[in-house]
């Protein structure tokens, strides 16, 4: 007996709580990855990140409507199509935004902040005009909403497993794209020395556009996946933006490993404190700790060592 609970109860809850922490970790990584790529590689602070996520969510909503109407036999696997389309839609919109807005502002980081914030407002109102002010309900295939009962008490939510798998897949994909492909090489070359990269024949403008598009595309996938755990409405993107920035800044802006480490520490801290104290208290304590650490280490957890 531990407190009022039996030993099995206690260990079961420990296991489920561990799983909850891992789910939160995956969610955080998925949220932050796109932003981290854009911020780290291009120095652009994309305030419209949340709205790109919601674009993915709305694409998923449209897919669910389309499949239940026209292809009900394939409804159980529509989610995979939806994620691909969500990526495509946000990727294209991202490239368009880079072409029409961001590329004029590369040497003015504060202006990009303001411009992308304006963009986020525009997108929110666009969603509101197109889909209505109310939240939409995304119907999910049944197999995604259930849970696996391991013992009487331990139940593992399938959507948690799904998000975890997806996060691993995307992270690996990004790793290969950045560190094992020609395009990744050009991108890193541009980050390290733009003039020199241009001189050796890399199309730096195209690299910028692709990078921004990729970051937005990943946000779109994240948004699509989050229809399983959250709401889909014109302003729902705002729910994620604070946590996302927190993770990217805490992790050290230009390091993917940093983003992952920071997502891990923040999610574990948060879910543990939430369990022992309350939700609001967990947020306060997490934020205080992060602020404290950032005061001692303003560059974040990890930094890329490059000559400037």
């Amino acid at each position, binding site marked *: 007996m531990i407190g009022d*609970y039996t030993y099995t*109860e206690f260990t079961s*809850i420990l296991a*489920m*709580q561990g*799983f*909850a922490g891992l*789910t*939160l970790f995956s*969610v955080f990584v998925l949220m932050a990855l796109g932003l981290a790529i854009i911020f780290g590689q291009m120095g652009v602070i994309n305030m419209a990140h949340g709205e790109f996520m919601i674009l993915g969510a709305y694409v998923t909503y449209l897919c669910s409507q389309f499949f239940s109407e026209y292809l009900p036999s394939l409804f159980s696997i529509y989610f995979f199509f939806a994620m691909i389309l969500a990526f495509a839609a946000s990727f294209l919109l991202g490239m368009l935004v880079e072409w029409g807005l961001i590329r004029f502002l590369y040497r003015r980081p504060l202006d990009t902040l303001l411009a992308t914030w304006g963009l986020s407002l525009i997108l929110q*109102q666009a969603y*509101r005009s197109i889909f*209505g*002010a*109310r*939240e*939409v*309900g*995304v*119907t999910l295939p049944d197999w995604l*909403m*259930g*849970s696996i*009962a391991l013992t009487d*008490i331990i*139940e593992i*939510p*399938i*959507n*948690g497993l799904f998000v975890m798998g997806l996060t691993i897949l995307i992270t690996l994909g990004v790793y290969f794209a950045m560190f094992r492909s020609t395009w990744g090489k050009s991108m890193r070359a541009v980050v390290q020395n733009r003039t020199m990269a241009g001189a050796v024949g890399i199309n730096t403008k195209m690299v910028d556009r692709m990078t921004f598009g990729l970051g937005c595309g990943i946000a779109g996938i994240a948004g699509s996946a*989050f229809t*399983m*755990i*959250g*709401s*889909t*409405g*014109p*302003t*729902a993107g*705002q*729910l*994620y933006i604070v946590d996302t920035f927190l993770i990217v800044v805490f992790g050290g802006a230009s390091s993917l490993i940093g983003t992952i480490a920071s997502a891990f520490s923040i999610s574990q801290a*948060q*879910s543990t404190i*939430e*369990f022992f104290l*309350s*939700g*609001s208290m*967990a*947020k306060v304590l997490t934020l205080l700790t992060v602020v404290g650490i950032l005061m001692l280490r303003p560059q974040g957890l990890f930094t890329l060592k490059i000559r400037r």
Partner: protein
Amino acid sequence: MRQKTISPFSITRRALLAGIAVLPALSFASAPLRAQEVATADANTTGLAVTDDTVKVGILHSITGTMAISETGSVEAEKLAIDQINAAGGVLGRKIEYIQEDGASDWPTFAEKAKKLLVEDKTAAVFGCWTSASRKAVLPVFEQYNGMLYYPTFYEGLEESPNVIYTGQEATQQIIAGIDWVVREKGAKSFYLLGSDYIWPRTANKIARKHIEKLGLKVSGEEYYPLGHTQFNSVINKIKLKKPDVIYAIVVGGSNVAFYKQLKAAGIDMAKEKPLLLTISVTEDEVLGIGGENIAGAYASMKYFESLPNDNNKAFVAAFKEKWGADSVIGDVTQAAYLGPWLWKAAVEKAGSFDIDKVRAASPGIELTTAPEGYVRIHENHHLWSRTRIGHARDDGQFDVVFETKDLIEPNPFPEGYQ
């Protein structure tokens, strides 16, 4: 969407002349209609926007920003009520014209627009606000310029302004009957209180806790999550560990969707009622976002459900769907918003005047037998006597009404022993 007002300068001279020529004929034609009614000079001694044929009112809700999700239904209901009143001859023989302003989910904007509606537009009444924060922001404006606000949302109570009529339930009306029901019918012994972290859920849970403890039952947990929180796995684990009979949930906004989806994903089947879920913050409007299949089996305690079988409600639902589309749903607050214009009309006609002071004096005791929720009456404290009902959520996003209080419940915004 602002009401278009035609500036005289935009009319061509010829049209103006033609208009002048028609004027005597018009006033002659409508003269017999107005003869038995109150002259404008008598009905309006304080310079409100009242003419011989029209009276201006304001609609003040957020149609942009976060709160647009919730406030859209209220705007639709108020416009429907105004249309119906106009079709039935208006108020004291005058057609209602509304001026709509957008509070934009921003509380200072609400105050600014309220001032505009009262000072510039001289509206005779304003129907609006949704969150307590927006109401608190406009309250000084309405008190300073002596306006009349009809406020539709169920809220935490602890307020009674001479310039506001509260058409939603205050907290004790909504909460106590619900808890009594779940204790009596479901044999609940322990409660887990959960809410979003702001004034309404905290005050409401305070009342709930006092009442539960008065009944000698147990509160096994109470906690709050920041607005917009989307991760509820930890609290769901805690609930599983503590095994309460009832989860008493007052989660709002985007968090609502996350909470119910994760509850379902974690294997808590609400249909089994172990634990049972009772909420006071989910209406048909919220279910649209949550998805009926994710909340089916939960209970909600409030004064109105779209499925109420009485004739008033059937007519109201039909009219609402005809005007705003067959897909639209009607939640508790939407119905309360619909009562606003009707209660105002009744008070104006009882007073025989649009003057705010006379309308206020006439308001207590005003009854509405045509209300979709059934009979309501305005109390001395400007809240409504109303029944509380328990709805059982269905797959299709509607609620089955499984219980309703026998008597009207007296509004008690300052409940002694609950603060």
